[in-house]
């Protein structure tokens, strides 16, 4: 049986604010003590620059950093650690993909981007399309908020469709896509698939080989790890074909004015001193997460989410956006004439933290016909009391504002 109190105790911030009800986990999760300890221990015992130094600390730092790459590879079940590239976050990872894999595309090629995407999985492709004379095909969603698979099939059948950009789970409405089936469809048409896993990794098991995706990205800070670290997984076959993007130290083999040779993959994609301590923190978070009973964590989150949506449906005037069969433990809400910002202010006054706005998914908000929503997103340290309190304050607030 999952012991939420014991789990929650591992998070110093939540202990620091005992009254806080943190329901903004899709924006960023809080960090367990072991992650903070790992970063601090790295700086206290192993800090040096990686890969180049001829001294024992440099060896320790390099081992810590490359060890983190191995940990990420195991977490994603990548075939090799070489397929893991560290970035600042999912956004930089997607920019990396657009600037490297994107260079394999030719003028007139088409990129399919779903309407569910976070701006981070749309704007880099748009910028690429402008530079390389490519077209973006906006892939629609169904009434329940899932990818329109019929339209996807139509798009994939187009001769110039080369790349599909899709999220594993929507940050704004929580829909979980059947990525394995989508990657299968994509592969049959020789179309590459880039999966934004930013919202999925903290909640769902991810196996990039089973999913069959060519690219998978995520941010550390949404999976209990520090900010400033993210991951791009690129399948080796693709990795060997792509050019570097940022130039600088670390990514080269030899440099001369007459010409520069780049490092072998994945080194050629990591220019400059990498975020070493953050990679160590990420590895600590993923190791810690792997030690948890993840099925129990997910079951706990799912039960809380059921409690939340049952409660929301009982409050007059609440509209829940996104009714996908498979949803993350998050709910996007509007309240008729009552503005989500106002509701959030009254929740905040009771120390309940939620997110309001377009959630960096304006095309999706346009498709839903709304300009702003309030998002409640759960993590495994949330409790049934958190949900009950949120529902009670929400009901009172709406009563008062109506």
């Amino acid at each position: 049986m999952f012991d939420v109190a014991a789990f929650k105790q591992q998070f110093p911030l939540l202990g620091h604010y005992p009254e806080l009800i943190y329901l903004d986990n899709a924006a960023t999760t809080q960090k367990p003590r072991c992650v903070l300890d790992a970063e601090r221990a790295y700086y206290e015992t192993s800090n040096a620059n990686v890969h180049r130094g001829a001294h024992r600390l440099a060896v320790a730092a390099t081992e810590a950093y490359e060890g983190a790459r191995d940990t990420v590879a195991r977490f994603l079940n990548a075939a090799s650690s070489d397929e893991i590239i560290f970035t600042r976050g999912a956004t930089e990872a997607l920019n990396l993909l657009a600037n490297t894999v994107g260079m394999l595309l030719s003028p007139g090629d088409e990129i399919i981007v779903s309407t569910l995407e976070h701006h981070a999985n749309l704007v880099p492709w748009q910028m690429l399309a402008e530079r390389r004379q490519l077209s973006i095909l906006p892939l629609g969603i169904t009434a329940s908020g899932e990818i329109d698979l019929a339209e996807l099939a139509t798009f994939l059948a187009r001769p110039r469709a080369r790349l599909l950009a899709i999220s594993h789970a929507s940050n704004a409405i929580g829909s979980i896509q059947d990525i394995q089936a989508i990657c299968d469809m994509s592969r049959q048409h020789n179309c590459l698939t880039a999966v934004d896993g930013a919202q999925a990794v903290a909640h769902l098991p991810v196996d990039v080989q089973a999913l069959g995706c060519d690219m998978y990205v995520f941010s550390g800070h949404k999976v209990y790890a520090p900010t400033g670290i993210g991951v791009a997984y690129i399948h080796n076959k693709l990795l060997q074909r792509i050019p570097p993007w940022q130039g600088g130290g670390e990514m080269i083999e030899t440099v001369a004015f007459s010409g520069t040779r780049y490092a072998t993959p994945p080194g050629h994609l990591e220019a400059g001193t990498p975020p070493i301590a953050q990679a160590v923190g990420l590895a600590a978070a993923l190791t810690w997460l792997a030690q948890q009973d993840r099925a129990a964590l997910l079951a706990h989150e799912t039960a809380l989410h059921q409690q939340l949506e049952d409660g929301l449906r009982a409050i007059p005037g609440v509209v829940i956006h996104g009714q996908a069969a498979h949803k993350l433990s998050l709910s996007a809400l509007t309240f008729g004439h009552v503005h989500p910002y106002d509701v959030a202010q009254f929740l905040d006054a009771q120390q309940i933290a939620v997110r309001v706005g377009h959630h960096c998914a304006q095309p999706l908000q346009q498709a839903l016909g709304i300009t702003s929503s309030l998002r409640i997103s759960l993590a495994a340290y949330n409790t049934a009391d958190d949900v009950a309190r949120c529902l009670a304050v929400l009901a009172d607030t709406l009563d008062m504002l109506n």
Partner: protein
Amino acid sequence: MIPTELLAHPFGQTITLTQLAATLDAAASWEAKNRLLVQLSRQLPDWPAEYKTADCKVSGCESQVWLRQDRSADGHWQVAADSDSRIVKGLLALVLTAYHHQPTNAVQTFDFEGWLQARGMQRFLTASRGNGLRAIVQTIEKQRQ
């Protein structure tokens, strides 16, 4: 010219900043201040849809804010504003109290942010992406230059 129906509010004329400061200071908790802002919003007229045009929309707010400003014949700045958020509209009532119906040379140096901070309401400034309060005040001051 700003339609008179949009100017039918007490802020800056019968309600002064001194009065509002006293009321806000008496509302001790965040909750009480939020409630007060909602009450203040009810004294600002809701704009008919035809006045909510793109040219008077203030960008930089997650709620929608519309603002019109003009100089009247007697040398006063007239300001009218509306928002689809009650809290933001309550904040607009504070802004209007500082800027509406003031002599054209009077309010250039008013430290609205300092005034809010003194009320313990700086959270409405730091969370500026949410309510756009800074953008609203900047819009008013820029239009007056």
